[in-house]
């Protein structure tokens, strides 16, 4: 059994809602999480952002749904960190 501890997403979103609301809504989706957003590029109607989410058991599907609901689209998953609670049986 493994759990997602960290994920970094490259997202294209409209200017509204702001990254403050974006981060707040995503953080509300996962308990005990830390969300950081960096704006990479700003265009006329859109902006490219990188979302860093750290948590204990992050649900990617609910985060993706939230991003779509807020008008954004996930361009790529740039980084993941998964931890396992079982012993290593390699």
């Amino acid at each position, binding site marked *: 059994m493994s759990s997602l501890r960290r994920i970094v997403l490259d997202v294209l*979103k409209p200017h509204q809602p702001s990254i403050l609301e974006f981060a707040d809504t995503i953080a509300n989706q996962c308990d005990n999480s830390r969300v950081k957003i960096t704006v990479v590029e700003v265009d006329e*109607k859109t902006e490219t952002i990188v979302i860093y989410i750290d948590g204990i058991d992050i649900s990617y599907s609910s985060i993706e749904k939230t991003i779509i609901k807020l008008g954004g689209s996930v361009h790529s998953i740039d980084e993941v960190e998964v931890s396992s609670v079982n012993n290593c049986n390699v």
Partner: protein
Amino acid sequence: MFNKIHFLFKLASTGDIARRYFVTNGFDGALAMLGLIIGFYGSNTTSTTIIITACFGTAIALTISGFVSAYISESAERKKELDELEQALLKNMNDSAHAQAAKLAPIFIAAANSLAPLIISLLIILPIWLSHLGVTLPIQASLISIIFAFIILFSLGVFIGRLNGQFWLWSGIRTLIIAIITAGLILGVEKLLE
């Protein structure tokens, strides 16, 4: 629920637009009622039934016209904005909050645009209505209605002044002057027609 609606309204900048529509159509409603009542007052029409019917008719027409015109124009505008956003993002936005806001915002704005003249018209007609119901008023009901219209127009001016950071009294006096000029023009035309 309330938070969601608040979020959607913020997303569509609904509050600012609805406020603008409320003032614009509220001003229309107040000035239309003022014109009607001064017209009746100047022509010495004493039948309150005729005055109330004419005023209510105008108020209902302004309400429906306000709703339909704002809804049609705002819906078209929101759809255009959503299409442009979809093109910029290269994706369908049907499941997004933006699509919901684009549907909700025109209804709210249309409601503000239609309720403004209705509420203001009802307030202005109220003294004539009370008189019609047999309530004794200190002065002629039409005169009270005209004073109400002047007060409402002054208040709308004050409201506009507060919004754009102007001195509220000057802004109020400016709309009052417009109301006085309108009243003067109507009375002048009536004198010419006599």
